[in-house]
C-alpha cells in the first residue's frame, strides 16, 4: 500500500550513491539507515509527531544530492559575523566544510574543533556511538537520510575542566546553486566533566535557494559541565530545514538553550533532551516567528530520568499572514526521577486571521514528589495596550511592533551576553511583519 520510492523526494534522495568511507561500522550504519528510509519513506499526518506538518508538497519535489561546487561558492563573510563574537568558527556551505571561511587557528587548549570529514580520517572510534545509530521509526525519516548521506558536520569536544571564555560559532550556510540541493550535516558535540562552553549555531542564507537540509546533532554534557547554546535560524525563505538536536545531561550538568526560528519555508526542529544524571538542570527558551507562508514546527521532548532534575521551558510563537507555527512540548518524568521539577510554557500570538499556531503541551509523571507545571495559550495583541500606546501618540503599526517585540523578549531576557542579547532582539524586530518605522 505504501510505496515510498514512488515519491519523487524519496527517489531523488535514494538516487545518490552511498558515501564511501574506510570505516566498516559507518558503512554498515549508512546502508541500514538508507534501507530503512527506502522501505519506510516519509511520515504522514496520521503520525502524532507529524500531525500538523504535512510533507505532501515536499514529497513531490526532487533534490540533487550534495554540492560538488560548494567549495567555490562565493559567500559574503559579513553574513557569518556576529557582534561581540570573535572566537573559533566552523563554517559549512551546503553541507561542505569551508576552511577558508572558518576560524580555526590557535584554538584554545582543551578545545577540539574539526569537520567530521577530517575526524573520520583519523581515529573514528570515539564517534562510533553517535554515528552507528540505526533509526527505527518512520517518523525518523530525516534522521535516517541524514545518517545515510551526511559526509560532513561538526566534531567538537571540550576537555574536562576546561572553561572556554570565547563562544564557539557553528555556521551552516545554504548557498544559491544551479539546482535545488539536498545537503546534510552530522554534528557530534561533547563537554567533558566540569567543562564550560558557549555555543552559537547559526543557519544563514547566501542568496535565494530552495534546498532541503537535514542536520542531526548529538550533544553530550558530562558531569558538572555547563553549556550555553544559542541557535539562530535564519535560513532562506524558500529553504526546507529539518533538524534534530539530542542532548544528554549527566549529573549536575547545566544547559541553557535559546532558539530563534525566523527563516525557512518548511522548518522542523526536534529537540530531545534527556536528564540522565542527578541534579541535571535544563532551561530552554525559544521564539518562532513564521510569516508569509512559512511553516515552523518545534518538537520539544524532555525526559527526566534522575533524581532532583530540573527543566524549565519558555517558548513564544508569533504567526502572521498565512503562516503556521507548531509547538509540541512533551515532558516525561520517568520512574525513579523523584524530586524533579518540570515547567513548560508556550504562549502564542496570532497577528493575522489567516495565521495558525498549533500547540500541545504534554506531561507524563511516573515519579514521586515531582513539581510540574505546564500551559499554553494562543491569543491576539491586547487591544487595551494597543489603545494605550496609540493614545500617547504611537501609531498603530509601531504600537503593534512594540507589543510583539515585548512579547518575544521575555525569551531573551536571561541571556548573559548583552551584546548578543541586543543583536538577537534586533533580529527579532527586523523580522517582524510590521515595520517599526511605519507611520500609519
Amino acid at each position, binding site marked *: 500500500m505504501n510505496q515510498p520510492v514512488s515519491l519523487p523526494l524519496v527517489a531523488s534522495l535514494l538516487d545518490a550513491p552511498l558515501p564511501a568511507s574506510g570505516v566498516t561500522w559507518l558503512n554498515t550504519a549508512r546502508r541500514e539507515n538508507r534501507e530503512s528510509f527506502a522501505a519506510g519513506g516519509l511520515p504522514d499526518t496520521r503520525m502524532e509527531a507529524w500531525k500538523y506538518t504535512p510533507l505532501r508538497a515536499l514529497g513531490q519535489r526532487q533534490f540533487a544530492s550534495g554540492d560538488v561546487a560548494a567549495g567555490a561558492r562565493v559567500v559574503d563573510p559579513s553574513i557569518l559575523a556576529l557582534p561581540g563574537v570573535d572566537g573559533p568558527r566552523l563554517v559549512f556551505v551546503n553541507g561542505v566544510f569551508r576552511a577558508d571561511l572558518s576560524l580555526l587557528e590557535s584554538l584554545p587548549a582543551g578545545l577540539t574543533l574539526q569537520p567530521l570529514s577530517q575526524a573520520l580520517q583519523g581515529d573514528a572510534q570515539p564517534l562510533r556511538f553517535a554515528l552507528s545509530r540505526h533509526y527505527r521509526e518512520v517518523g525518523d525519516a530525516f534522521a535516517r537520510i541524514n545518517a545515510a548521506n551526511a559526509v560532513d558536520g561538526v566534531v567538537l569536544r571540550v576537555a574536562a575542566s576546561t572553561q572556554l571564555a570565547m563562544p564557539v560559532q557553528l555556521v551552516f550556510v545554504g548557498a544559491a546553486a544551479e539546482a535545488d540541493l539536498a545537503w546534510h550535516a552530522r554534528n557530534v558535540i561533547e563537554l567533558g566533566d566540569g567543562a564550560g562552553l558557549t555555543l552559537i549555531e547559526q543557519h544563514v542564507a547566501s542568496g535565494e535557494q530552495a534546498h532541503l537540509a537535514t542536520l542531526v546533532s548529538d550533544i553530550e554534557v558530562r558531569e558538572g559541565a555547563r553549556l550555553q547554546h544559542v541557535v539562530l535560524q535564519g535560513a532562506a525563505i524558500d529553504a526546507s530545514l529539518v533538524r534534530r538536536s539530542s542532548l544528554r545531561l549527566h549529573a549536575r550538568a547545566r544547559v541553557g538553550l535559546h532558539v530563534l526560528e525566523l527563516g525557512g519555508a518548511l522548518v522542523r526542529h526536534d529537540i530531545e533532551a534527556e536528564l540522565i544524571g542527578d541534579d541535571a538542570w535544563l532551561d530552554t527558551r525559544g521564539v518562532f516567528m513564521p510569516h508569509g507562508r512559512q511553516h515552523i514546527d518545534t518538537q520539544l521532548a524532555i525526559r527526566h530520568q534522575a533524581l532532583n532534575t530540573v527543566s524549565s521551558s519558555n517558548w513564544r510563537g508569533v504567526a502572521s499572514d498565512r503562516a503556521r507555527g507548531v509547538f509540541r512540548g512533551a515532558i516525561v518524568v520517568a520512574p525513579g526521577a523523584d524530586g524533579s521539577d518540570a515547567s513548560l510554557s508556550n504562549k502564542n500570538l496570532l497577528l493575522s486571521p489567516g495565521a495558525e499556531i498549533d500547540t500541545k503541551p504534554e506531561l507524563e509523571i511516573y515519579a514521586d514528589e515531582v513539581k510540574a507545571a505546564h500551559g499554553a495559550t494562543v491569543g491576539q495583541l491586547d*487591544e487595551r495596550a494597543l489603545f494605550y500606546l*496609540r*493614545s500617547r*501618540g504611537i501609531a498603530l503599526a509601531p504600537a503593534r511592533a512594540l507589543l510583539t517585540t515585548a512579547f518575544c523578549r521575555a525569551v531573551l531576557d536571561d541571556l548573559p551576553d548583552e551584546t548578543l542579547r541586543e543583536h538577537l532582539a534586533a533580529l527579532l524586530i527586523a523580522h517582524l511583519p510590521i515595520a517599526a518605522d511605519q507611520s500609519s
Partner: protein
Amino acid sequence: MLKIENLHARVEGREILKGLSLSVNAGEVHAIMGPNGAGKSTLGNVLSGRDGYEVTAGSVTYNGIDLLSLAPEARAAAGVFLAFQYPVEIPGVNNTYFLRAALNAQRKVRGESELDSMQFLKLVREKLKVMQISDELLHRAVNAGFSGGEKKRNEIFQMAVLQPQLAILDETDSGLDIDALKQVAQGVNALRSPERSFLMITHYQRLLDYVVPDFVHVLADGRIVESGDKSLALKLEEHGYVGIGESHPAGATA
C-alpha cells in the same frame, strides 16, 4: 479650544451620551462630576478615540479641527492627552523607551526634531522632580507591577513629559490615599498654564480641594444638567446628586 456640541454616543448599542454640550477655553480647568453610569468615562474615551464608542450625532471641534475624524495617535500629536482611569500594564515595554517613542512620534507629526536619548533624559529628570517619582520607576516596564498610586502618578508624569494642550483626567483621584492624591494634584497644578486646559472627570469633589477648577459641570444621564463654579462641587458634596439639574434646562454655558 474644545467645543462639544450635542454629542450622542453609543457603547455596545446602548446610548450613553445623549446630547452633551460643553465649551472649554485655553487655560481653563473644568471638572465633570456625576453619579456612576452618567457617561463620564464614555466622554473621556470618545474624546481620545477609543474603539467601540460610536458617535451617532453631534460634533467635537478642537482648535478648529474635527477631533472625531482623527486616529487616537493623531489626537495625541495634536495635543490631547487622556490620563486613564485604569492605566494598562504592558510587560516587556520599558517605561522610558515607551515614553521617548511616544514623545518623538508626536514631535515627528508636528514637524519638530526628535529628541536624542541625552536630551530626553534631561527632560525626564526635570519632570521627575516635579512629580516626586523615583528613577526606579523609569527602568520598569510600563505600569507592570505598579501600585494603584504609582500608576496614577505615572499618568501625570507622562502628561508632564508630553505637555499636552488638552488634558483629560479620567477619575485620576479614584483609589488614591490622601498623600498620593496630594502628589497627583501637585503634579496637575504644576502643569496649569494659560495655554493648557484640563477636563477633570471625577466622582468625588475631594480632588477639587487640591486642584481648584474654574468650572464645575454635573453630568447625568448623558447630558450636562448643571454648570457652575467651584461652589457647585461643595453643594454636591453636601446634598449628593439627587435633585440636581431638575430645575435647570439641559446644556451648559461655560
